[in-house]
């Protein structure tokens, strides 16, 4: 009614002509009428008006001024014009105007201010549309919220999916690792079995050697191809007649050996079956460790080696196998308790193990190098996690330099001492992973130095380097606390073996991983190396590339390698914590899993990793270091 008449187009601000609406004027006028004072009036402040008695107001005043008697309509009208109802209840003094009073206020509706009335206008736009707009606004808002919620749900879903995917990838990777562990373990097994096979072969050939004792083929059978030797009957060559008959001896033995050799070849060829069928424990291990006879005395050694040397000279080191000038068996663990092999008592191990190697080309065994070809083998240092600290105690400057260079090439950090006293002092003040101790030295000899050191250090391995490897001497070394003997002059292989033996705990991955790749090579090396032991009466190994770590298993005395097998331990341990660290980084999840670092939120993840790093061993730390980088977005 009112709204309609004044609504028109609902253009509140449009028509300036009717500046203030009729409604407002009427309202004003009404309030000016004193007779209505008891029903409706200005407030005391004059900035609002109060309907004191709504009943009265509705009955009498409304009809007079506004032509309707609907209080609700009146209120609506007021609202349209942007009047605001003031709640009396909220005002502190309660309703000073009474309980049922309604107070309305408009900034431009003042008691004595007629002019401002013009400013009172309807709220734009059309009154009816306003509530709808509000509703629409509300609806819109709701719709927006809905869509947002949906969005969020979608995102949530996607994230969940991603998490699941990651989790399953995780599982896959873990399983892969497990599989690889198994594979590697199986390879370990295979190698062990193969070692045993070779043991048997060695034993077999030992027996043959026994049969041919008097033939004394001089060590280091010259040529690569045994068939080249003519079948001269062997003259019994005594050790003293060194120079004359290496070829003779070899050939003679060859005649007898051909059959067993062929058998050996067959055995080797039949690897797969033998592997399964032959569980015998390697006596050969004892052989390899003992090398030539230790039974009598290592004096024989000297004789034998000289013999071997002399005998070998004409062959001109044809095999490129370095002869150890003197006692030179490669390093082996000569422990007091090791049983040495009797059959080699005469020291004449003319056993050319090489030929079988050639002839067994089918096994994929690398043949011996050509006679005059010098084999330059790459010196592959072991894969250390941390460079081992080696103390090299040596008075001879030449040996010291060479030893030091060897060790440096093997990526060890080398410290030197020129006599036993200096060495003992160094060991007292510092920590070393390995000590290579010369025996004959001024001031304080190696044995005494070792005794001295053992009084305060029982763990650092001390290795005697000496040319004296008589049994008595060796016993003495052990009795004074030395762990092992490295005959001098040492060879690269000998040195490497010692490093592998006593420092394997410092290697990364404990050397497990590469073996798979070098598997065949490894076989070759075992055969060649062990063969050379046999051949030369314990002369040093051929210059083969550095052994795959599993080669060390061969020479390590304790058979309980399985117990030390790190495959089962380290990787899984790494797994757990590494994964523990990966997960929060990936998810940005605040629920970080329990880990040694004990971090609680992704924000602090990297810090937590660092904090925790000290509690974790090196290999894990590396991984964690990487992970912490990942999480640092």
């Amino acid at each position, binding site marked *: 009614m009112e709204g309609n008449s004044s609504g028109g187009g609902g253009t509140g601000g449009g028509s300036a002509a009717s500046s203030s609406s009729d409604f407002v004027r009427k309202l004003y006028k009404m309030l000016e009428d004193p007779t209505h004072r008891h029903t409706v009036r200005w407030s005391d402040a004059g900035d609002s008006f109060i309907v004191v008695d709504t009943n009265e107001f509705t009955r009498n005043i409304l009809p007079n001024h506004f032509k309707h008697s609907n209080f609700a309509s009146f209120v609506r009208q007021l609202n349209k014009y942007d009047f605001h109802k003031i709640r009396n209840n909220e005002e502190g003094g309660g309703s000073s105007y009474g309980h049922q009073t309604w107070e309305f206020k408009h900034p431009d509706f003042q008691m004595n201010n007629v002019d401002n009335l013009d400013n009172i206008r309807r709220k734009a736009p059309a009154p009816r549309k306003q509530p709808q707009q509000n509703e629409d606004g509300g609806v819109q808002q709701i719709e927006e919220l809905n869509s947002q919620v949906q969005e969020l749900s979608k995102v949530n879903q996607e994230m969940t999916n991603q998490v699941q995917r990651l989790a399953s990838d995780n599982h896959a990777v873990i399983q892969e690792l497990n599989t690889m562990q198994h594979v590697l373990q199986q390879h370990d097994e295979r190698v062990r079995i193969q070692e045993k096979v070779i043991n048997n072969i060695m034993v077999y050939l030992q027996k043959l050697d026994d049969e041919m004792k008097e033939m004394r083929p001089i060590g280091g059978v010259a040529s690569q191809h045994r068939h080249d030797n003519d079948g001269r009957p062997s003259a019994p060559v005594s050790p003293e007649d060194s120079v004359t008959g290496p070829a003779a001896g070899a050939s003679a033995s060859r005649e007898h050996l051909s059959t067993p050799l062929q058998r050996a070849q067959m055995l080797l060829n039949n690897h797969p079956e033998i592997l399964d069928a032959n569980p015998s424990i390697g006596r050969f291990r004892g052989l390899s460790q003992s090398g030539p006879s230790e039974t009598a005395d290592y004096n024989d050694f000297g*004789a034998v080696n000289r013999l071997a040397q002399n005998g070998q000279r004409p062959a*001109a080191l044809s095999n490129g196998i370095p*002869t150890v000038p003197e006692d030179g068996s490669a390093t082996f663990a000569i422990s007091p308790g090791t049983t040495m092999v009797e059959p080699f008592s005469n020291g004449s191990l003319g056993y050319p193990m090489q030929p079988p190697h050639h002839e067994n080309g089918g096994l994929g065994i690398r043949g011996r190098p050509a006679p005059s070809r010098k084999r330059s083998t790459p010196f592959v240092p072991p894969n250390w996690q941390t460079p081992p600290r080696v103390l090299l105690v040596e008075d001879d*400057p030449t040996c010291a330099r060479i030893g030091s260079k060897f060790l440096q090439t093997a990526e060890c950090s080398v410290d030197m001492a020129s006599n036993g006293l200096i060495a003992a002092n160094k060991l007292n003040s510092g920590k070393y992973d390995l000590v290579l101790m010369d025996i004959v030295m001024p001031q304080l000899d190696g044995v005494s130095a070792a005794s001295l050191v053992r009084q305060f250090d029982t763990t650092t391995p001390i290795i005697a380097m000496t040319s004296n490897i008589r049994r008595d001497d060796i016993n003495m070394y052990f009795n004074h606390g030395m762990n092992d003997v490295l005959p001098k*002059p040492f060879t690269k292989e000998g040195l490497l073996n010692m490093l592998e033996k006593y420092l394997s705990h410092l290697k990364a991955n404990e050397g497990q991983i590469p073996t798979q790749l070098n598997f065949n090579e490894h076989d070759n090396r075992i055969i060649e190396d062990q063969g050379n032991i046999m051949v030369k009466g314990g002369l040093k190994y051929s210059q083969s590339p550095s052994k795959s770590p599993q080669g060390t298993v061969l020479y390590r005395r304790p058979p309980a390698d399985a117990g030390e097998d790190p495959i089962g331990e380290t990787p899984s341990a790494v797994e757990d914590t590494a994964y523990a660290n990966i997960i929060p980084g990936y998810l940005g999840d605040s629920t970080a899993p329990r880990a040694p670092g004990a971090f609680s939120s992704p924000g602090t993840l990297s810090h937590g990793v660092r904090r925790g790093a000290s509690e974790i061993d090196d290999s894990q730390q590396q991984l964690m270091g990487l992970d912490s980088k990942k999480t640092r977005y």
Partner: protein
Amino acid sequence: MPSKDTDTTARKETAAVEKSESSERAPFDRNEKSDRIDFGTFEQILEMDDDDDREFSRAIVWGFMDQAQETFTAMRESIEKEDLERLSSLGHFLKGSSATLGLTTVKEYCEKIQHLGSGRDETGHADIDNPKVSLAGIKSALDEMKKEYAHVHRYFTGYYN
């Protein structure tokens, strides 16, 4: 490099000494040296060389040659003084480094001298009670050793030039 210069000087001196001392002069034939020098062993050292300049092995070899010269001189003196014990230890001392370089014949003589100096025979087995005999043995071993050394020295000189 300074070391090289001194080495060259030393080498020249050594060569002069050797020429005056050694009566025979074998033709320079690398193959012939095969019995004197165990190439397998020597190669180990060569492998340590970082580059073709062979600095490391050269240093080792020249260091050894200096060491050998000093040892010869000391041995000579000890023979004069008839100091068998010192002779034995000198022999042992040089034995190690010569063996490490693969100089088999030199090493053998060192070992003989070592044994003789400690009252044993050349093989180290039997005992020799008469010091004069030991001394005589040492003298001859020393002479032989120097000859061998001359060969080796010549070889190395050629090899490193």
